[in-house]
């Protein structure tokens, strides 16, 4: 059972090794020039950087992240249901209604978020 995942492990080692070897190669073979304060400063279109490196940003980004967690879990819940749907629906019609009510509950949350303007990026 777990042996199915062995190739994934090998693939992971291969990919990481590839990435690491590329990084090392460029460190070894790449030329390095002189360091200076200007060269080391953050890129701001050639001007001297103003303020801190990480400006404050809109709270909406947090909102999207939170909503993502909520709805992504809903999607994951749908997967096992979807896989057995075709075989089970013949005898158990309730499968359809149970998922419809489950999605309905989340739809209420979704409509609430829409109404509150959590997904409105216009302003």
């Amino acid at each position, binding site marked *: 059972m777990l042996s199915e995942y062995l190739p994934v492990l090998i693939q992971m080692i291969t990919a990481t090794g590839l990435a690491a070897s590329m990084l090392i*190669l460029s460190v070894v073979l*790449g030329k390095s020039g002189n360091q200076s304060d200007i060269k080391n400063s953050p890129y701001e279109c050639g001007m001297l950087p103003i303020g801190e490196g990480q400006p404050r940003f809109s709270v909406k980004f947090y909102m999207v992240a939170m909503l993502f967690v909520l709805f992504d879990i809903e999607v994951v819940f749908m997967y096992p249901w979807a896989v057995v749907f075709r075989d089970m629906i013949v005898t158990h019609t309730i499968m359809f209604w149970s998922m419809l009510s489950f999605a309905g509950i989340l739809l209420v949350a979704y409509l609430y978020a829409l109404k509150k303007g959590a997904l409105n990026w216009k302003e």
Partner: protein
Amino acid sequence: MEPFIIASIIKIFVMTLLVVLPLVALSSLAERKVSAFIQDRVGPNRVGIPATIFGAKKDIPFLGLIQPLADGLKFILKEDLTPGHVRKFFFILAPVLTMVPAMLTVAVVPFGSTINILGEEVKMVIADLNVGPLYTFAITSLGVYGIVLAGYASNSKYPFLGAVRSSSQMISYEISMGLSVVPVLMVYGELNLSRIALEQDTNGWALLPFSGHGWGTLQQWVLLVPMFISFIIFTVAIFAETNRMPFDLPECETELVGGYHTEYSSMKFAMFFMGEYAAMIIGSGLIITLFLGGWSIPFIPTAEFAKDHWWVGLLQFGCFLTKVIAFIFVFMWVRWTLPRFRFDQLMKLGWVFFFELALVNVFLTALILMWVK
């Protein structure tokens, strides 16, 4: 060693080093060629076989096909600058975290049916997992970390804004992507990508019901509607996940310079680039596997025949590659045709339009499966 391990090492070697990496290199050239063609230019056509080194009078241009090699060499030889203001560990980790997940997803994409080599049954997929789509979503989500870390570690304004935008874009489209796969899972009743491809080989592709044995059932024809909607949503979501053109806000040059990789140079920048292209290639592979039959040769179901004839496996592999390359061309075509979205349009499209459409689509599929026998 067990034959299973040897076979998987060979498969990984072939898929990673002989398929994905050369395709990444070639599509970086193809991108410029396609853009040149669309904009009525010539495109790169000089870098060929450097015959002058070996004493010949002229270089052989060779359609500029050696360009990716020259680019790679240049990337490696350039100064590997790590600016003083960055968070060093994360700065180095970020490009690795973009590239590795992109290369990991390739493990579950089947590129052929089961064949017999030296009496051993070999499945033409690196890892035949029973949780294919779940694995893909888990791994592609990791790609977000690379971009967020790049923005965070750079400690500079443009990368930071690019990373914040990118993360919210990618997670927004992940929901519609996840939902758009649900109808496919319902129709095939399967979470194993190789078995989904096999099913499509015998009974017709999701989008082409008459490509298998016979003309397809009535149910398959009616299911074309939700399948097509799913296909559109999934394809658009892959565009958004790979930050390709209509959705390339994370790195839109006019507003954010280079987006999350503004502070990167040399090979580290190249790794972001390669990660993006690898994600594009594997995304095409996923679209094909879910909706267009994967490795299956249209109108000729070959899965049974391939068991005793190993060369059929090569044909299937070729068919898979052809479809992937066709899709890569579509990716480029779209990039050089459509303008970029505004951020509020992008979020509205993802959260309002696609989310609702995908949710309705799930229940539409359920109704069809219940009523149309």
